[in-house]
């Protein structure tokens, strides 16, 4: 047993890092979907924008990372605002039109990014203080991924507290559960919706800045990240922060520990896991209470 544990310890740790990265991406998608009932297929584009920001601005210094984070935050907020404004006229027209619109936007954005950054994958260096590897229980592991686990845990905790414990969070949760009721109480739900869209987008872009050294920016990354986040969201249950966290950590382990255990079935693990969950619980693991 201890031999098994020793052999796969690194994979499990990496699964946590990977899972937390997926959480920062998926939570925004999940909330926007759960709350605004908007299917945003340009979500992967926001990650990519953040990752390219990190590539362009980080120079191996802490200051570079800080600037990249701030710019990434702004890029995310702007992108989220633009997307919210773009889908606003589609109110009441269903998910399919939203899907077509946001996918169209993401195709255009992808082309623009290729024009700006070229078609190569651009690995992004973390701050030099975090660039090496250290030994964890006798296994070599990149320092940056350890640091990322710390930062992302903090981020996840903040999101969780803000959503589950604060009064703003209560309002958001109430909007998820019953938008009309909240509106009748005199709250401008559109502001809540724009706020959540911007927040989710900013989180994805910041995820991109922090995630660039792990999943480097390049053509096609937007689509891959989108599919991963969709899987997490569907497994976790739409509109649930807890579900997104659990789904992300589960998929993280599937994609690392699972792959290490049965490498020859690697291409089938992600969707196999999703099918299994959906076959048992079509509404996801943690569907929030909506009648």
């Amino acid at each position: 047993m201890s031999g098994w544990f020793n052999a796969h310890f690194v994979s499990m740790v990496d699964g946590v890092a990977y899972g937390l990265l997926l959480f920062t991406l998926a939570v925004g998608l999940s909330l926007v979907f759960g709350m605004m009932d908007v299917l945003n297929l340009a979500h992967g584009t926001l990650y990519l924008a953040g990752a390219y920001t990190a590539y362009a601005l980080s120079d191996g210094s802490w200051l570079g990372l800080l600037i990249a984070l701030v710019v990434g935050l702004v890029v995310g907020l702007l992108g989220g605002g633009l997307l919210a404004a773009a889908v606003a006229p589609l109110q009441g027209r269903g998910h399919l039109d939203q899907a077509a619109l946001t996918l169209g936007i993401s195709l255009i954005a992808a082309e623009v990014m290729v024009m700006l950054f070229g078609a190569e994958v651009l690995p992004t260096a973390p701050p030099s203080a975090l660039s090496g590897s250290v030994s964890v229980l006798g296994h070599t592991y990149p320092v940056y991924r350890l640091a990322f686990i710390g930062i992302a845990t903090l981020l996840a905790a903040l999101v969780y507290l803000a959503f589950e414990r604060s009064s703003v969070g209560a309002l958001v949760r109430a909007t998820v559960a019953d938008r009309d009721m909240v509106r009748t109480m005199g709250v401008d739900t559109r502001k809540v919706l724009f706020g959540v869209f911007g927040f989710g987008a900013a989180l994805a872009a910041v995820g991109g800045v922090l995630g660039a050294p792990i999943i480097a920016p390049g053509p096609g990354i937007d689509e891959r990240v989108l599919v991963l986040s969709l899987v997490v969201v569907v497994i976790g249950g739409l509109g649930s922060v807890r579900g997104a966290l659990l789904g992300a950590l589960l998929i993280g382990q599937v994609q690392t520990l699972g792959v290490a255990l049965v490498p020859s079935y690697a291409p089938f693990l992600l969707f196999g896991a999703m099918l299994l969950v959906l076959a048992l619980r079509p509404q996801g693991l943690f569907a929030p209470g909506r009648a």
Partner: protein
Amino acid sequence: MRARRTPILIAVAAATALTLSACGGGTLGGGDEEEAGSGGPIKIGLLVPQSGVYKSLGDDMKAGFEVYLEEHDNMLGGVEVEVILADEGETADSGKAAADKLVKQDEVTVVTGVVSSAVMNGVVDLFETSKIPLVGSNASPTTLTDATYIWRTSYVNDQPGEALGAYVAEQVDGSVYFLAADYQAGLDEVTGFKRSFDAAGGETADEVYTPFPGTTNFQPFLANANSSGAEALFSFYAGGAAVEFVKQYDQFGLKGQIDHYSAGFLTEGGVLDAQGESALGTFTAMNYNFDLENELNASFVEAYEAKTGLKPTTYAMASYDAAHVLDLAIEAAGGEDADSESINTAIGEIEKVESPRGTWTWSEIGTPVQTWYLREVQEVDGTLANVVIQELGEL
């Protein structure tokens, strides 16, 4: 309800018809069989990716071809040429549609390019039935052995591995672990490697294929390789996956523990800069390197650098050679009188091609017989570069 739509449909149909009628000439009935009249420039289709994940390879191949044309005043075989560019894209589907357009609409005399093996397989029928020569400059599946109109100036997919296998079996004292991208080229590369590796008494630890193109995190695969007790690793990756793989091989502590051998694509061109110091000490097998010492290579490297600011890759070199092959063939086929058929015959009759990689000849299946080189990634004057260590023999 239904009747309301009538005018719309007519409008759409009319608009479509108007837009497309510019192409002219019916497929049925219309006397469209004539070859393009002599006297005008010869049309050459350049089929390379200009979008999608293979775009940078496409850029290299386009530049390589253009360098040759610029050196020869846009003339091949004494005739002016018109190059028609088509976007191969990323999938067999998009590549096939682009090839269709070159052959059926632009009515080119000859086509060159093609990055993806799947596209190459998909267009075999097209070129064989329309009897138009395709001088491919990259993709080269092992299964393509009996085509009449398809040539390649690159290699066969299993050759970089085969060239390296025996050498690794000799050098490594212990077992070798195999990791390759899970698609046909990856399988071919490993198969080729093991052919010469097994024959030389090499020992295999394990053979694992990683999902392609979906894998960005190689950690679980590298962890397994690390705990396998293997002495060396043979890999096959190209493009973005190559960048991620080399960096993570370093980050997860395999570098310095397990020697890394690979087919040359791993460190070819732009990916090497992206990999950075993680790539130092990687051994690869390739049919070309920019530092080869011969006169033709020196002038090629100079012209290529002047044009692009980059060192030429094997992709650019193979495309340069494709232009050279066409130059020789068109001249032999009679210059202005050359047509697809006579050019194809002339290509087969070329005895040897002087190339930046050294002189090569045609194999029985229309691929080069050439010298292979072992290269190591080293730091040269502050920048990373592949450096030729020794020859690996001829294949």
